[in-house]
């Protein structure tokens, strides 16, 4: 049919303003149910989620950056695929997208423990839409049931739709640009670039090869397809640091609730760390 | 490859477990049909007896220092017993007393370690009864369950049952055969049996009775003490006609369970 694709993203952190439009667009596109009153940043569903990174200094040296984190679509040794006992996750060889099958998911949450990017979300509640809101549902995406895991799938439904349009038009393959996930489309600054990493002259592939590009948790060997880049050295360093520290940038989520802070141990220990 | 190993191991495990279960079921069916149930029941009860109850008869007579019976008191198949009997033939009956430790143990019969006795009658039938110690343990029973004439009994199977004060005791049959007539506690015997064979190697007689009875009295003291009875039956004491009446608080089921195996 067509050569296998490896869809990936290149996210320009310097362009991200933290507006959260990608989060909203994702929720609308993928029929995420409205959060229950008891939901918080730890049990809500946000397939894409913007984190704030600070450089740890006070005024006037304080600087911030925003990092949208979504499923990294790991390639090699995909942590979630190998651990699912029911084979409810697989890597689509045609697109490289890590797809989750909610109908087969048992809800054991082993994949959630395995994912280092915390990109997987569990339906702790039955999805419920207030009366009238069902009109906003996207008919091309199936809502998930209570007790299963879900995550970003690069708006797989849109890929299917693009394939069908191409087939209807008699084309062998979809063109770049025919298919973009909702977050890419919604971003007002164009911070997220989406494309086929196998096309070495494509935007995303070229961006991924730039010296300021990096991937999260690269040394774990997961081979993610999301490349981040920033011209600011402190951003690159902070995003690849192995741990959040009190002196170094501290993160906070987009929702205002503050999670339990922790007191690090004696300063000598911190000094001895690399 | 991993698939083969995984499913191979799984199917092997399932096969082993199901075949074990089905072997057990099939063997059970066969055993039930062959009427070995009584022997199995007795074997399992024998192995639950405390070690001091399973002592070989030749230890009682002093021929051996210590040995645990390996045939559930069925000496007919025991090589050691055959060997020892050949070496020390039993004392002729005439020289022995009938009155042992105050209880009457006539010499015209042979005794089972479960306190039943068997006597060959002139018409080649066997009379089965309860010995004097057994009678004193179960005197004035609440109920007696005797088998119907025509029932088959086997060595070490249940001959008849007696109930007294919460104790439900099954008495072990000393012989194989078919029940012809039943007696009871008011008569001198309980069953009259037409024997299949008169192999009585497993029964005690003659000079074995005294040491066995001494051992039984010790066991009775132990059983009573275990049930909280105060010191009694000091050396040389004679058990009364109704032992149970002397120990109203003792668990008679436990005491009888000990004494009647």
């Amino acid at each position, binding site marked *: 049919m067509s050569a296998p694709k490896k869809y990936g993203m290149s996210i320009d952190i310097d362009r991200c303003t933290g507006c959260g439009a990608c989060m909203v667009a994702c929720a609308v596109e993928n029929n995420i149910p409205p959060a229950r009153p008891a939901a918080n940043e730890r049990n809500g569903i946000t397939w894409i989620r913007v984190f704030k990174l600070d450089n740890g200094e006070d005024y006037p040296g304080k600087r911030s950056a925003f990092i949208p984190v979504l499923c990294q679509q790991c390639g090699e040794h995909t942590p979630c695929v190998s651990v699912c006992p029911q084979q409810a996750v697989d890597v689509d060889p045609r697109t490289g997208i890590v797809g989750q099958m909610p109908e*087969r998911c048992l809800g054991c949450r082993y994949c*959630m423990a395995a994912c*280092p990017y915390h990109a997987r979300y569990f339906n702790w509640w*039955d999805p419920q839409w207030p009366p009238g809101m069902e009109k906003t549902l996207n008919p091309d995406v199936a809502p998930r049931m209570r007790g299963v895991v879900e995550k970003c799938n690069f708006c797989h439904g849109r890929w299917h739709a693009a394939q069908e349009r191409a087939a209807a038009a008699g084309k062998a393959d979809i063109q770049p640009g025919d298919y973009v996930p909702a977050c890419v489309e919604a971003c007002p600054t164009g911070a997220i670039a989406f494309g086929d990493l196998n096309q070495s002259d494509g935007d995303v592939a070229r961006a991924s090869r730039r010296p300021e590009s990096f991937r999260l948790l690269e040394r774990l060997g997961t081979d993610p397809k999301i490349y981040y880049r920033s011209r600011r050295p402190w951003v690159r360093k902070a995003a690849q640091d192995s741990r959040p520290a009190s002196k170094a940038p501290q993160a906070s989520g987009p929702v205002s609730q503050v999670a339990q802070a922790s007191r690090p141990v004696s300063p000598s220990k911190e000094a001895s*760390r690399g | 490859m991993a698939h083969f190993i995984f499913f191979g191991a799984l199917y092997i495990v399932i096969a082993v477990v199901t075949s*074990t*279960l089905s072997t*057990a079921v099939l063997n059970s069916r066969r055993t039930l049909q062959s009427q070995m149930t009584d022997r199995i029941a007795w074997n399992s009860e024998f192995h639950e007896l405390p070690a001091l109850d399973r002592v070989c008869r030749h230890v009682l007579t002093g021929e051996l220092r210590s040995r645990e019976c390996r045939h559930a008191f069925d000496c007919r198949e025991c090589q050691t017993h055959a060997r020892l009997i050949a070496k020390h033939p039993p004392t002729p009956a005439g020289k022995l007393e009938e009155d042992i430790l105050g209880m009457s143990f006539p010499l015209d019969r042979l005794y089972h370690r479960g306190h039943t006795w068997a006597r060959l009658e002139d018409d080649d039938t066997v009379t089965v009864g309860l010995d004097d110690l057994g009678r004193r343990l179960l005197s004035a029973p609440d109920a007696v369950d005797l088998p119907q004439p025509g029932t088959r009994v086997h060595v070490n199977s249940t001959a008849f049952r007696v109930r007294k004060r919460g104790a439900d005791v099954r008495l072990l049959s000393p012989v194989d055969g078919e029940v012809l007539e039943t007696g009871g506690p008011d008569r001198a015997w309980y069953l009259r049996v037409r024997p299949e064979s008169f192999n009585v190697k497993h029964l005690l007689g003659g000079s074995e009775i005294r040491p066995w009875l001494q051992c039984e009295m010790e066991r009775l003291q132990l059983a009573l003490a275990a049930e909280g009875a105060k010191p009694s039956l000091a050396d040389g004491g004679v058990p009364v006609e109704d032992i149970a009446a002397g120990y109203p608080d003792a668990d008679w089921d436990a005491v009888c369970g000990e004494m009647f195996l």
Partner: protein
Amino acid sequence: MDKGLIARGLKRCSTGRFLLWILPWAALLAFGLYSAGLCLVLGLNQTNMDNRFAFGLWIFLDLTIIALGAGAFFTGFLLYILKVRELHAIINSAVVIGLVCYSGAICVLLVDVGQPLRAWFTFWYPNVHSMLTEVTFCLSCYLIVLFIEYLPIVLKNRKLREVPSFLVFEFELHKLIYVLAGVGTFLSFFHQGSLGGLYGVLRGRPFAFREGLALWPSTFFLFILSAAAVGPSFVLFTTWLVEKMARKPLVRPAVLQLLGRISGSLLAVYVLAKTVDTLVWINRTSPERGFPAAQYYSWQPFGTWILFAEIVLFGLAPALILLAPKLRARTGWLVSAAAMACCGVALNRFVMTIQTLALPTLPFDKFLSYYPSWQETGTFLAVVAYGVLVYSFSFRYLQLFPEERELKLEASQREEPVLAGRY
């Protein structure tokens, strides 16, 4: 009242007192079932687990009781395969403990998953590369084996054994018990191991990830060792507890000391293996993945004290106590060491479950804490109550301790030395 059901020669408390004992546990079970019911009906939002703490109290306690229940397979292996005859005195009790632990764990697991009715999917679409598949299959098969091993114990009940078919079936099954013991050992080896493998393969969690042999990380073997070490300790501890509560001797002290010695030796081997593994992890595995090990212990309350407690305080110390014959001979030391060993395994399972998930992986992450909700605690208390109830009924109506009768006679013999001639 229920005298006819109690084995001959054994003394048990009156029916009234037994009911008085049962009642609070039954009430606890009812409350626990209600908690579990809430979780099943209303959803897992009833718990305090969340997207970061995907595993919580239930998984931690499940793993602990499965490790503690390992006494069933290990005692069976020692008795029926290696012919350590003295263990005949506690095998029945060990089987009941194992049955209770495994069936309880599986019930909690069914409440823990989001879609319990889909549990059969693992059997129909198994992922042979996943450790959790291995766990599911081995646990299910082993639970069946445990039920089959429990059956003869039940069939030997005083009333039930009077049914000829039960009696004969028990007899025939017992002849083949070594086959079941072998299968049980094989299955237990794999499921205890794959429970360890669950954590060791998590390449996304450098705190838990370990190198290993072929497709099995070192935690696979460490979990087997720790379970085999702590199984006899738990049997020892429960036997002592039951003896205390029943106020009568149930096993010879030599049997308990044997269990202690077995547990101590395995525990010593485990501590050695764990130390080597920890050193490799601190110096090679974790730094290679970009995570210096010291940072794991820089978050309160999980300082290095927890590593010390797990390996030295609740690992090496009980191992040394259990290996010292003079200390083993003293019940206080023996039972305390056994309890400490059990705590050590519980701590290890806790660290692998909760600490793994609490630690941040991403730099813009946080160290989070979690405490269970009352529904979670209630569900687990249901398992405890269920265990106590099953064990209580088994102790009363079945012969869990074959030496009890003999010990009763020996005790009265000591009080009343028999004056007639010895034979």
